[in-house]
Structures are given as C-alpha cells and as structure tokens.
C-alpha cells in the first residue's frame, strides 16, 4: 500500500506523527545536540558545557513548570547528516520537549526540515548569516544586523575605505560576504579582494600574500575553526599586525584565542554580542558559576552565553505558556525576556530571534576581549535585513 502523494489525492496534508512528549511525570526530557567528536567538537563542546550548566541551575531552581529537566545528549559528530539523524531520534524516539544545539549553518540547515516535519523546537545558539526564520527554530545568536552590520558601521565610522574579505568556504562566510558587498557598495567602501579557504585549510601564505599586496584599510574575517590560527600566524609572520592592517573577526571567541596564541592576535578586533569581560551582575554570576563548575582557566564566550541563555528563555516561554506543547510555547514566545549575561534579551515572536546588543571588542594581552564600542542598546533582529535599503537585492 502506498502513502500520501503530495500532488493531490490522499490527504496531502498528512501532518507529522503526533508528538510523543511525555509530561505526565516528575520530569521532562530535553535534548542537547552538539558535536562531541569531529572537527567542530573544539567549539561545540563549550556550548554543551554551558547548556549543562543552565540545566543544572534550572533544576536546582525547581525545574520547568515544576518538572526536573532530564537531559538526553547526542553527538552530532560534526556532520550535517548525523545532526539530521540525531534530531530525528531525539524528537521521535526520545520524545524530548525541545532540542538545544547546532553550530555550523550546515548543521542547522540539516536539522531544519526535521524540526518542521516533526513540528518540534530547536534552539540554535550561534551567530549566523540570517535570511532564515523557521517557526520551529529560535535563534539566540546574532543575525547579521546584530553583528556584521554594526561591525561595518564601526569600520566606516573609523574611516575605513577599503576592505579585504577572507572567509571559510561555506554558507555562512559566503552569505555574510554577499551582505558586506552590498553594504560596501552603498557606503562607498571598496572591496579589494575576497578569498575563501576550505574549512580546515592550513596554508595561508598565498592568501596572506594577496591580502598584503592588496593593501586594504582592514580585513574582514569570516574564517571558522582551525583556519583562524594558521591565518593569524601567517599574517604575523608576514610582518602584518593590527597596527598595519586591522582584522575584524566574527568567529573568534575567547576560547579560540588561546589556540591562536595571544601574541598573534593581540590588538585585533572582533564583533560579538557578549564577551567574558562584559561588566554586568548577571555576567559576573554566570562566569563565576561556569568557572566553579568547569575550572578557573575556562573562558566564557558568546556562543556559550547564547546557549546558556537559550535554555533559560525556553523555560520562560514554557512557564509563560503554562504548557510544553510546541504550539503553546511558540504562541507565548513573543516578548519573553531573560536577564542574560550579555544584558537583557527579548524574544521576537515574529521572526524567532532575540534582540541583542552589538559589541566591537579588541583582543587584549590577557587573552580576553575588551569592548571597544557598543551599540548601547539591544538591536531588534532583522534576519532578512528588511530595514536596510542597501540590502534590497539580497533575498
């Protein structure tokens, strides 16, 4: 016997199987889906740790709607396909109420159809390229108008007239650079070069040669992962420095700095919404709790903070809705706030992003990032850049 066809006949709208989430007991299951092995484990392990911390805090604080969180943890193994498979397992086999995780845009894109088909919820904690807003995903990292656009504004303000773009060869950097190009054209900034290196690329002599000979005012860096280290070492060795040609990075957080070597990135700029050095009471508590749990030497970073925040936001949404049901939670999401380490964040119920404050930071000799410039107040999320004329042609 055959099932439904999409083009007419049968009940073409055959919805996903009914949710199997069990909320009858003392506890409720939530899923963590991070890469604990493979190339992305470097970054995603830290997110996993932050999520774990948030769950422990919530449980200690009485749980969600009085139910203790029971964590089901899965390894995405740094492969989109595995993320898709594990998302399916968490939803249909473990029957979790919501899933927290993902890092690369590839992993998110892989999970998206699964969450939509099964009508479940994903909380995604990493800055990304925007142009997306799924009813089944909440994006607690920055979208482009909260990170890349402010960084460009900052550069323009500093008198930057030309930029060289360096990125990893995948969807986030390519899309980000499309946006940067559009911005540059509208603002009279010249893009003098655009180079992509495969993820994991480790020989940057040619790219650095190109950067050097192009002689831009600054470099906009969307490299991800290990490549940053090789890039900055090469940059330094070629006699370049923040003084000669600053580099603005959007994927280097506190824990990557140790790997790159402070001496190689000191004085360079980053764009994020959170730094460990953010001077707020909520952050002091967060950093202290995190280091007490995982060790004094462990830094905190933006994606960790966004992940930590995401679990708390979900809790607030559930409690506001008074229900774990996806429809109810989504309906209740708009306007939910949390006093996050980065400052108060507010959920936008329409596009499922959060309002966030943009921060440009400078890497200090202490290996931490210090705020150079702040947008002052949270910026409303605008994933499709609808509020920006220059971005008209983008989507």
């Amino acid at each position, binding site marked *: 016997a055959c099932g439904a066809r999409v083009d007419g006949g049968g009940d073409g709208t055959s919805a996903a199987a009914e949710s199997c989430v069990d909320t009858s007991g003392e506890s409720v299951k939530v899923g963590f889906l991070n890469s604990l*092995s493979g*190339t992305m*484990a*470097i970054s995603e*392990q*830290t997110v996993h740790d932050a999520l774990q911390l948030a769950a422990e805090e919530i449980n200690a604080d009485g749980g969600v709607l009085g139910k203790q969180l029971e964590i089901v943890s899965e390894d995405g193994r740094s492969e989109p396909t595995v993320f898709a498979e594990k998302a399916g397992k968490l939803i249909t086999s473990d029957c979790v109420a919501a899933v927290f995780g993902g890092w690369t845009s590839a992993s998110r894109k892989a999970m998206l159809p699964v969450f939509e088909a099964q009508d479940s919820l994903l909380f995604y904690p990493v800055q990304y390229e925007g142009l997306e807003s799924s009813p089944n995903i909440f994006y607690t990292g920055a979208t482009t108008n909260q990170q890349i656009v402010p960084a460009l504004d900052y550069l323009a303000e500093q008198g930057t007239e030309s930029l060289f773009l360096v990125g990893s*060869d995948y969807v986030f950097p390519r899309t980000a650079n499309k946006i940067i190009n559009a911005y540059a054209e509208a603002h009279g900034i010249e893009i003098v070069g655009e*180079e*992509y*290196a*495969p993820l*994991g*690329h*480790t*020989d940057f*002599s*040619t*790219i650095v*040669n*190109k950067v*050097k*000979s192009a002689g831009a005012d600054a470099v906009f860096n969307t490299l991800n992962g*290990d490549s940053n*280290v*090789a890039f900055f*070492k*090469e940059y*330094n*060795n*070629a*006699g370049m420095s923040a003084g000669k040609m600053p580099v603005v990075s959007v994927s280097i957080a506190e*824990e*990557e700095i*140790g*790997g*790159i*070597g402070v*001496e*190689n990135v000191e004085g360079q700029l980053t764009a994020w919404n959170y730094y460990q050095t953010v001077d707020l009471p909520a952050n002091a508590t967060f950093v202290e709790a995190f280091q007490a749990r995982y060790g004094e030497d462990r830094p905190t970073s933006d994606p960790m903070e966004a992940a930590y925040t995401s679990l708390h936001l979900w809790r607030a949404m559930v409690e506001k809705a008074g229900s774990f049901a996806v429809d109810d939670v989504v309906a209740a999401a708009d306007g939910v706030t949390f006093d996050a380490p980065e400052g108060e964040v507010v959920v936008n119920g329409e596009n499922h992003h959060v309002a966030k404050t943009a921060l440009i930071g400078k890497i200090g000799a202490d290996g931490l990032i210090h705020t150079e410039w702040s947008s002052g107040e949270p910026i409303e999320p605008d994933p499709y850049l609808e509020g920006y004329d220059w971005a008209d042609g983008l989507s």
Partner: protein
Amino acid sequence: MDIVAQLFAGLSLGSVLLLAALGLSLTFGQMGVINMAHGEFMMAGAYTAFLIQAVVGDAGVSLLLALPLGFVVGGLLGLLLEATLIRRMYRRPLDTLLVTWGVALVLQQVARDVFGAPNVDVRAPAWLSGAVEIGGLAWPRTRLFILALATACVVALALAMRATPLGRRIRAVVQNRDLAEASGISSRSTDRITFFLGSGLAGIAGVALTLLGSIGPTLGTNYIVDAFLVVVAGGIGQIKGTVIAATALGLMQAFLEYSTTASVAKVLVFVAIVAFLQLRPQGLVSVRTRSLA
C-alpha cells in the same frame, strides 16, 4: 601577481609537504606500508613541542629541544606500531592501510581525551617571529626555517640511504625479506629501524607545523592525503622524486591558488596528478623491473 612572493610561498608549501612526505617515502616507499597513522605521528610530534614548551617555557630552547624529542616520540610510536601490528602484515600491504587507519582514529581520540578537543598553541621563538626584509620583500622567518629544516632532513636521509650500510640493508630487506634473512641480515631489526626513522621524520614534521598553525587532534588528517600523493607522484621509494614532487605540488598549489581559489587549486592539483600518472604510471622517478622475473 607578485611572482617572487608566490614562488616563495610555493617553495615553502612544498617544504612542508616534503617534511610530511619524507617519512612516508621510507615507510611507504621502501617498506610498502601504507601508514595512515603517519599524520597522527606528526600530531604527536606537535604535542611534544607543546608539552616541552609548557615545561621549559622559553620558546627558543623548547623548539630546539622539540626537534630531537619530536623525532624520538614519533619514532617510538612507529616502533610500537611496527612491533605490534605492522610486522604481521608485510605480505599484505593494502591491509596496512586499513589497520593504520584504525590506529589513527584511536590516536586522535587519545589526543582529544588527553589534551582536550580545543586546539593548543605553541609560541614561536622571538628569533623566528616576523619577517626579514631582503630586496624589498618580507621573507617570513618561520618559513625560511622550515625550508632549511626540510633541506637538512632530505640531505641526511639521502646520505643515509645511499651511502651507509643501513641504507643498503633497509633496501635489501624491503625487496626480499627471506633472502635478506638468509643473507644474515636481521629483517626484524631492520624493519624496526626503518619504521623508527620514517615515523621519527613525521615527528619532526609535526614540530615544524607548530610554527605555522595550531595543533589539534586532527592535525595529521590535513596532510596525509597530500603526503601520499607526493610519494606516489614522485615514484615510490625515490627520495629524489619525492623532493621534486613536493616542490612541484607546492608551486602548483601556490600559483593556482593565486589565480583561482584555494579549493579550486586543490581540485586542479589532484586532477593534474591523475593526469600525470597517466603519462608516468610509476611516478616521476621509477625503477624499472623485468616483470615476472
């Protein structure tokens, strides 16, 4: 295009490839073992440099200590691998590929469990940071250092293989183990020494790589495919061929990358190698044999 700068970038990339491939030209080229864990021996060399720096502190001293110690660590790992697994498999060269791949997986995970998943950094000594200005061009010191190191390793290895009894013994054992034994040569100890040397070279390569990037559990996987291609394109068992192939690949990658992108350059280099092997299936430098004789 700045031709001189790109020439240098190509040579420098070639020297890195050469360091990675040189050990393979012994273990793969001479012994026929397709050691996929070679990259992980490089990783071990790199972590050795990291540990030494953690203990010694001074970047210069620790680099100079790391080179011989990296050699020993890589070599000992190789020795262990040879003594436990490889020695049972000389008659099944293709199977060594699979076994060592399993070993590589395990070594990566060991590194992850011991040193943590995040990459770590080894500071370069002050005398290697920055660039020297010659003729209006900046020559990165680390790159010059690696070039010199690769050259030194090649010369040492070539001399050892050509002109010493050990070199002859290694080559004899590889060609006919039984005959070597029957000629009074201990094939067991020769195998071990060869594997030690080849793996030790991987350790040195790993130490050198700490000057270029960060070190993490997957350091080796970035180089292993390229390194094998170098050995194959150069002609198995041929140091001369390995040197030429590494240099050619480095230059090709650098120039193609300049005019296209890193990804496209990489694909083009692979295509070029396949095409090249059409012309010379035995690689650049090959030893003729009377087949079936």
